[in-house]
């Protein structure tokens, strides 16, 4: 149990894939404009990273060195395509919102980092490595999309919470995404710094 908590803390806080390692910012920022797209894409990224990590670690010894990075990206692309087809079959309304951004998970640094971790690792370690990156991504996109939909649109999952006149439209634009993410990184760093100081004083 303690080990599990430690693993979650490490992946969400200490080595957060978005806030600390700055991976996959393009899909993260664009798909966090509403809570539904954020949750769905976060879950999709998590599943893709785990599955592609497993396959890459299984195939790692078979694929020749020269074309390793190329084949890893294609493997990830296949899993993203599977996710895409399933998603649009069950939730066709998301097609316009996620359209070009879901495939971009393949070429973002996120998939690259997962492939690097899975290379020459055992299957379990590769799956955990992918999951850790995915968890960090999911946590950030969840909070971002919650704030952006609540204050930008005044709704949550499409239900109105704040009257329309009081919603700040700007937050749903790319400007809001960049601004909010900047503040996130700043707050995160400040808190991490304070925690570090506290530990030293103890």
């Amino acid at each position, binding site marked *: 149990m303690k080990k599990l908590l430690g693993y979650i803390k490490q992946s969400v806080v200490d080595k957060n894939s978005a806030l600390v390692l700055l991976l996959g*910012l*393009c899909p993260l920022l664009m798909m966090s404009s509403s809570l539904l797209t954020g949750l769905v894409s976060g879950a999709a990224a998590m599943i893709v990273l785990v599955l592609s990590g497993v396959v890459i670690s299984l195939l790692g010894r078979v694929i020749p060195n020269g*074309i390793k990075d*190329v084949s890893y990206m294609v493997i990830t692309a*296949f899993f993203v395509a599977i996710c895409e087809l399933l998603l649009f079959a069950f939730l066709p309304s998301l097609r316009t919102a996620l359209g070009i951004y879901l495939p971009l998970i*393949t070429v973002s640094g996120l998939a690259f980092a997962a492939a690097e971790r899975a290379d020459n690792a055992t299957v379990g370690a590769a799956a955990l490595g992918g999951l850790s990156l995915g968890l960090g991504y999911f946590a950030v996109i969840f909070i971002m999309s919650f704030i952006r939909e609540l204050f930008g649109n005044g709704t949550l999952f499409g239900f109105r919470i704040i009257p329309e006149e009081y919603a700040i439209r700007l937050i749903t634009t*790319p400007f809001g995404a960049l601004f909010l993410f*900047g503040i996130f990184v700043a707050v995160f*760093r400040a808190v991490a710094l304070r925690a570090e100081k506290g530990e030293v004083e103890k």
Partner: protein
Amino acid sequence: MRLLSLLSIAAGAVLAENIIFSNLLGITPFLKESRGIRPALRQGVTTAFASVFASLLSWLLDTLIIRPAGIEYLRSVVFVLVAVSGVKLAEVMISKRFPKLSEKLDISFSLVAANTALLGVMLLASERSYTFFESLFFGVFAGLGYLAVCVLFASVREKLEYSDTPGFLEGLPIALITAALVALAFSGFAGIKFI
């Protein structure tokens, strides 16, 4: 009429729908490489070249392979396969034929391939179903837009170095907030249309 539509694609790709600020494509290398004008210039030029090829490639793949074969659902896989192996091939060829140039450029595979701008341009061009000339224009001007914004933002960040930023905002956070403000300025171009 044709010319006007090409013009509006060009103006859109550079200003109103700049791939960085309206789609946030290639934002990670943009933030990382804009620490100085030189790396920003290098990143911008590489991406601009890649974007021209990417846009033409997406038209070619769409008309020759994907649509005749009826495999629209595999579009992103095909694009990733061709684009990434194209980048790899180019890297190998440059390093074999012109070892000095490749040393000077120092462009790594991951810098180009792991750039969402490349695949993003392909998917955008294909989604809007551009004709040949339209995709050529889109690729060239989207690349130019990326280059211009990279250099512009790098010079803003050079000024930021000398400013007195609060400690917790130093480095990346203030860069992100500045980028947000530049994006806001760029959204002012949204009304430009030629048709």
